[in-house]
């Protein structure tokens, strides 16, 4: 390991003031978000494609670009999920080169949140924190609960009380303290903001947010490496707070900056559900002012953040890269889930349906050209939101166990052939 620290300090994204690498997340002067800053010269001198490829197949193969000081201690197997060439879906959408970044099979809790949590908890341990917590729409709670259990940390997860039962169960099983708040996510988040720091806990997406958020970059690093060390021309990302979108952009930019990929033009697009689309609405209205959504109403509960923390930065990122945002109805979300499942064999949660549906609209309207490379980021598994589609996928055909009934069942199909 190189002696120079790669992760140098925290820095306010608004005013540039520097802060020590502690459990803090906003600037004392303008409340701007603090972001991890690195010594890119030092990283460029040491991190090569060969070095990365010689390491284990996890997100930690990019550890120089992650905000921890020692070796990672939590979530060592997380990441390096498949990048699938989606030929059948490409044909359906009429595009030439389409890939699915499949984080439905991320380890251990089947969503991209394992990436951010493993960074946040590794850093929490470095800072001597023994209790971790989060405000969550479900996936993050599952991941904090699981990774904290494996790391021997105490945990509290705060969620809106009306989440999908499978997401609640998917936290309870790990022996965490699940606290259901009678309110929307934004109210959960506000409560967490007010209590963060009060008990000496590490709230992964509040006072540990600068560390947590950086974990999302690994999704972008992996896409670039798995494409053969190049950047995709178009990337479609689901948006809740907008953080993932900004970090995929940061990942592509960092890889170019340290010479791991050739600099090339790329555009990033954001996908939301129409029932909670504050960022997409701002983009369509050509403003950077994100109007909060007071009562989100969509089956895509994992994206139901009415006051997106990174909305402003997501808008700037999309505009700067020549991308844009789109949103879709609940019906379109279900169609999107089916389109992905029936053509690629991937069962995505509602947020994945949002990404596919919005990508379809962007392609059909010509905003994403059909002859250039496209990556769709599918960030969570469908088994986690079965309730949303349980009455939309039909029923099994029931027969008694005899050949006659089986043949009778197949007959109409046989005739059709």
């Amino acid at each position, binding site marked *: 390991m190189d002696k120079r620290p790669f992760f140098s300090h925290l820095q306010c994204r*608004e005013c540039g003031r520097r802060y020590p690498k502690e459990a*803090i*997340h*906003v*600037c*004392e*002067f*303008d*409340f*701007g*978000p603090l972001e991890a800053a690195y010594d890119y010269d030092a990283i460029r001198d040491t991190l090569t494609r060969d070095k990365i490829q010689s390491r284990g197949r996890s997100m930690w193969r990019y550890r120089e670009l992650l905000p921890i000081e020692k070796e990672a201690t939590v979530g060592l197997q997380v990441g390096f999920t498949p990048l699938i060439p989606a030929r059948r879906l490409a044909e359906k959408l009429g595009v030439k080169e389409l890939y699915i970044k499949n984080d439905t099979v991320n380890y251990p809790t089947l969503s991209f949140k394992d990436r951010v949590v493993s960074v946040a908890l590794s850093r929490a341990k470095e800072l001597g924190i023994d209790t971790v917590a989060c*405000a969550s729409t479900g996936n993050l709670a599952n991941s904090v609960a699981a990774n904290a259990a494996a790391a021997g940390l105490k945990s509290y997860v705060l969620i809106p009380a009306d989440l999908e039962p499978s997401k609640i169960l998917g936290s309870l099983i790990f022996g965490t303290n699940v606290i259901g708040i009678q309110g929307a*996510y*934004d*109210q959960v*988040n*506000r409560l*967490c*903001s*007010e209590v*963060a*720091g009060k008990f000496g806990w590490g*709230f992964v*997406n*509040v006072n540990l*947010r600068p560390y947590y958020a950086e974990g999302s970059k690994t999704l972008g690093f992996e896409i670039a490496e798995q494409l053969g060390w190049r950047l995709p021309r178009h990337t479609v990302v689901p948006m*809740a*707070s*907008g*953080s993932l979108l900004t970090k995929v952009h940061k990942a592509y930019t960092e890889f170019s900056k340290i010479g791991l990929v050739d600099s090339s033009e790329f555009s990033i697009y954001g996908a939301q559900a129409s029932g909670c689309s504050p960022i997409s609405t701002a983009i369509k209205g050509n403003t950077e002012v994100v*109007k*909060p959504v*007071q009562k989100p109403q969509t089956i895509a509960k994992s994206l139901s*953040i009415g*006051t*997106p*923390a*990174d909305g*402003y930065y997501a808008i700037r990122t999309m505009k700067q890269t020549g991308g844009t945002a789109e949103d879709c109805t609940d019906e379109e979300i279900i169609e999107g889930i089916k389109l992905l499942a029936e053509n690629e064999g991937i069962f995505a949660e509602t947020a994945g349906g949002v990404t596919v549906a919005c990508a379809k609209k962007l392609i059909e309207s010509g905003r994403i050209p059909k002859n250039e490379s496209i990556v769709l980021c599918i960030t969570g598994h469908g088994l986690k939101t079965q309730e949303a589609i349980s009455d939309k996928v039909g029923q099994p055909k029931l027969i008694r166990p005899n050949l006659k009934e089986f043949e009778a069942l197949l007959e109409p199909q046989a005739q059709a052939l």
Partner: protein
Amino acid sequence: MSIPVRIPTPLRKLTSDQEVVDAEGSTVREVINSLEKTYPGLKERIYDEQDKVRRFVNVFVNDEDIRFLNESETAVKTGDEISIVPAIAGG
């Protein structure tokens, strides 16, 4: 009338580490202006040069974001509580 105001961690250096401070006023703006007299420097952390609430600050009256009410002109009365909360969190 006196309104309790919850101060977020990043601003407590200005309030001698007090979590809740009392201030006078009948609108959010008046309360913040009166806070500024007792704790100089506080207002510019909350309002920008155009006298608008900063992008990354959320102000609540009881449980409601003032963006859903009457912004800084939102009326407050005895029994209400104002909370200043950093906007950057979650997701």
